């Protein structure tokens, strides 16, 4: 039994935008160098230098959603990579080792690599492996983890690396950075980010205009096209459509009875099916912690200082206590009745502390939480029946409250 999924009008535009992004890298480079970049890296500098940025993480998600990640993971495992490693990394490396098996033939060959450890340490090793395979230079952008307050010496260190990064890219590509252009790109980046923030805030409405799979699908441009005009256009259209839904009282899920919060990367391999199982019980995920990671603007003022601050302080680079505070805020702001945490085998920084977070958020808000064990791409680490049983029990418990 399916439920009606209320498709967004902008869905076609999103598809065209993302297709153009991948085609551009494959066929429309016009001599521009290609960089492989992590989702939390200061891409504005690359964009300002006319470098095409592509995202192995987004590619991993895409393979997960198309359910073709497992054969690629197997390629990596055959090369010696443990099946316990991140499935984005295994998917991406599998596509590197055997592009014939990979959707769109894999990502376009890189000229340089940029990895930032503000999301995890895995990207360092993953990008070292890519760099070794292609024999291309890698810049690791080191954003020290923030257990307590943001340290001024850490910000200095990060800002100094931005200067080194500029030098690194100039040397690798023989292109020069125009600072004025960088400021323009940062402005576009901020426009994108603030539109995205607006869209998320609109979901505080009743009935909620979006369900979390909408956020996950529509977050792609905020990651891969941040700092471009096309992303700004797209998010304006999406914002308008979501605002219209709110005005007209159109909800993403018919008969919304429970408002939920999602924590972690989704199960890309059953994105709609998974959330539809909840929707059938009238449960809608009105907010999540993951897509919010891209709603932080670059502060005004000196552009490098601003970029340093924005990239050093992203959510996954901060303590569990900080994440508790953020989740408590979301529970209150979005009037949430429960939260579901994906204990994601692929993502240690996001997942290892979830039990502690769950206890504190539940105690502070009085709202119940559910932890499910799965993997974002690797379907071999997913026990459907076991998860379903827990989901059903959780929704029944919500209904009884």
């Amino acid at each position, binding site marked *: 039994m399916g439920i009606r999924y209320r498709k967004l009008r902008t869905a076609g535009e999103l598809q065209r935008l993302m297709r153009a992004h991948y085609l551009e890298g494959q066929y429309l480079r016009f001599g521009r160098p290609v960089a492989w970049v992590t989702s939390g890296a200061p891409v504005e500098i690359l964009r300002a230098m006319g470098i095409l940025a592509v995202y192995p993480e987004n590619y991993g998600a895409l393979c997960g959603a198309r359910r073709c990640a497992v054969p690629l993971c197997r390629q990596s495992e055959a090369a010696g*990579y*443990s099946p316990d490693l991140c499935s984005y990394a295994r998917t991406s490396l599998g596509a590197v080792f055997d592009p014939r098996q990979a959707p769109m033939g894999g990502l376009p060959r890189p000229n340089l690599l940029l990895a930032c450890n503000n999301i995890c*340490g895995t990207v360092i090793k993953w990008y070292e492996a890519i760099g070794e395979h292609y024999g291309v230079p890698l810049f690791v952008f*080191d954003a020290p983890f923030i257990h307590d307050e943001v340290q001024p010496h850490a910000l200095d*260190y990060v800002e100094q690396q931005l200067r080194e990064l500029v030098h690194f890219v100039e040397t690798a590509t023989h292109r020069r950075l125009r600072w004025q252009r960088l400021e323009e790109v940062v402005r576009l980046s901020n426009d994108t980010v603030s539109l995205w923030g607006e869209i998320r805030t609109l979901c505080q409405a009743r009935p909620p205009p979006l369900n979390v799979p909408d956020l996950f699908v529509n977050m792609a441009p905020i990651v891969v096209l941040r700092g471009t005009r096309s992303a700004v256009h797209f998010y304006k259209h999406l914002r308008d459509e979501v605002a219209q839904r709110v005005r007209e009282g159109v909800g993403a899920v018919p008969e919304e009875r429970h408002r939920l919060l999602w924590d972690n990367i989704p199960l890309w391999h059953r994105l709609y099916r998974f959330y539809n199982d909840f929707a059938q019980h009238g449960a809608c995920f009105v907010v999540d912690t993951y897509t919010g990671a891209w709603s932080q603007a670059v502060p005004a003022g000196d552009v490098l200082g601003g970029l340093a601050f924005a990239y050093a302080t992203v959510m996954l680079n901060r303590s*569990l*206590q900080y994440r508790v505070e953020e989740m408590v805020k979301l529970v209150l702001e979005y009037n949430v009745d429960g939260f579901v945490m994906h204990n994601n085998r692929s993502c240690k920084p996001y997942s*290892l502390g979830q039990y*502690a977070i769950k206890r504190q958020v539940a105690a502070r808000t009085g709202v119940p939480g559910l932890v499910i*064990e799965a993997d974002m791409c690797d379907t071999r680490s997913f026990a459907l029946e076991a998860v379903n049983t827990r989901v059903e029990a959780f929704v029944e418990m919500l209904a009884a409250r």
Partner: protein
Amino acid sequence: MPKAAALQECLDLVSAPYRDWQAQYPGRRAIGYFCTYAPLELLHATGLVPVRLMQSAGPVALANAHLPSFCCALARATTERMLSEEFAFLQGVLFVHTCDTMQCLADVWRMASPQLRVYTFSAPTVLDHAESKAYCVAELHRLACALERDYGASISSEALRDSIRLYNEQRRLLSELHGQRRQLSDTDRWSLTLAGMLMPVEDHNPLLRALLDAAAGVLADRDDGPSVYLVGAVLDDPAIVQLIAELGGRVVGDDLCTGRRYFDVLVDEEAEPYAALAERALQRQPCPSKHSQRDERRLRLSRAIRDSGAQGVIFLLPKFCEPHAFDYVTLSNMVEKLGLGQLLIETDVTLPREALRTRLQAFLEMLCQKDGVSGERRQLSGLRAGKSD
């Protein structure tokens, strides 16, 4: 102290390090740490005894409420010990930023045990950016301030220099211990090394000195048999080394964080102490969670393995350890190019001793055949191993 008694003290400490620590060292204040990037000299200069927190054997139950199953045994087993109050003697714990797991563990411990004093040291991940050292020095000062505040101590440059000299002495002695392979058995050597991370350095140094002097000229159990190089993370239980010895093999070198990565490279005793500590952290053989633009880790390891004359490499890979699991692929290819044999052993909470014995035996035999060692000699090794059982 006679050799036997000194050795026995180390063996006892390594087999049960934490339960009776305070009784054994009354009046001493201990601080726990996990990682070789921990600035031990700074802790020592505060008047604390750094005690390394290791996995050791034992079931994991309480920790399952705090950490998921896909988390390394080091994190789960130490969390179990923390929850079961075995670490109650510690004045605090220092977490150094290395991998994603250690990063989370610091916060998990803070949340699980609010009365525990948790210190963090966000060491740089990239070792050779222009500002890596300046950042590292500033971060050391931040840690020093926190320690001074909590322990009412003022860490003088002189005290810090004294601590640096003591730990350098330990590094020299451990280096000597691992360099002169004929004088002590591999198992004893590893127990002595681990003991140095558990007992006060002032106690360990003279004990080690005396043992090395007493052992001079004495031939340990063997000098033949296939030679292996160990590569991996924490070797907290000498059982694997003992098994290798029982099967007639010899450990001729290592890249472990309870081995050479602990005692490799001295701190400059003349330079400004904070700068000197940072310099060593950036210059020593890196852990795979660190990045250097010149790929220092592989270059140095390749050289060290060649120089050791090892016939084979044993990778000790803790299950769910991402940095080492990624590194394994690169290093395995490197060992292949060096033309050496290799064996991967995945370690977890418990060590399956008998299965391990079979695999090690097959590997060591393979190494013998590969290098054309005669069957007779191998048989002899087997007999000797039988005797010592």
